[in-house]
């Protein structure tokens, strides 16, 4: 099992501030996904990054995959209360035959109005 460490575990900020969530591993991943999960629901895909150094933007969300494909970050600009939720990173190991995902423990983001 490839271990993914997310930090911070909890993040509480004021509306309009920026935030960054980190996802780190000592292992190399073929791909890395970011999901958002609401209580009692399934993870909802935000983005998939595949290439080392890749940057993807989704409105106010910016995702980056590290050059060595061992880490990733999620940056939210001008956070809004609607961004409140649990953010999960999940990676597919380079030697996986079936693309199964290993998940981080998640970062709980709270944006105060």
């Amino acid at each position, binding site marked *: 099992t490839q271990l993914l460490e997310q930090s911070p575990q909890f993040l509480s900020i004021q509306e309009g501030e920026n935030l960054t969530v980190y996802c780190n591993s000592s292992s190399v991943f073929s791909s890395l996904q970011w999901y958002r999960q609401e209580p*009692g629901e399934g993870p*909802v*895909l935000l983005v998939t990054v595949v290439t080392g150094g890749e940057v993807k933007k989704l409105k106010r969300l910016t995702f980056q995959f590290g050059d060595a494909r061992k880490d990733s970050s999620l940056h939210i600009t001008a956070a809004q209360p609607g961004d409140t939720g649990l953010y999960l990173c*999940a990676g597919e190991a380079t030697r996986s035959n079936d*693309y199964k*995902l*290993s*998940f981080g*423990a998640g970062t709980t983001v709270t944006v105060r109005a």
Partner: protein
Amino acid sequence: EPEVTQTPSHQVTQMGQEVILRCVPISNHLYFYWYRQILGQKVEFLVSFYNNEISEKSEIFDDQFSVERPDGSNFTLKIRSTKLEDSAMYFCARQHGTSMYTQYFGPGTRLTVL
């Protein structure tokens, strides 16, 4: 992308009973998966299913667990004799149609073992 549906949304059972959780991936895809998430813990891989066979399974997926796709559409996870520690959210996932790395998750089944 088409959704993945799961039934039931909540299942309560007595310890030692068998449960069957169902998933209906709307479109046909190569890989299907079951994951579980114990309350407050990480999402954990259970098993992957490819071409109507188990591709890989985790240490969690012991002899009490089985998967099948009996009619070519429904994808089921069976737990033969449930234990208290089987209480969790169980998620079915399917591979994206064109991106092999991406998975779409169902809404989950909350299993409560009493």
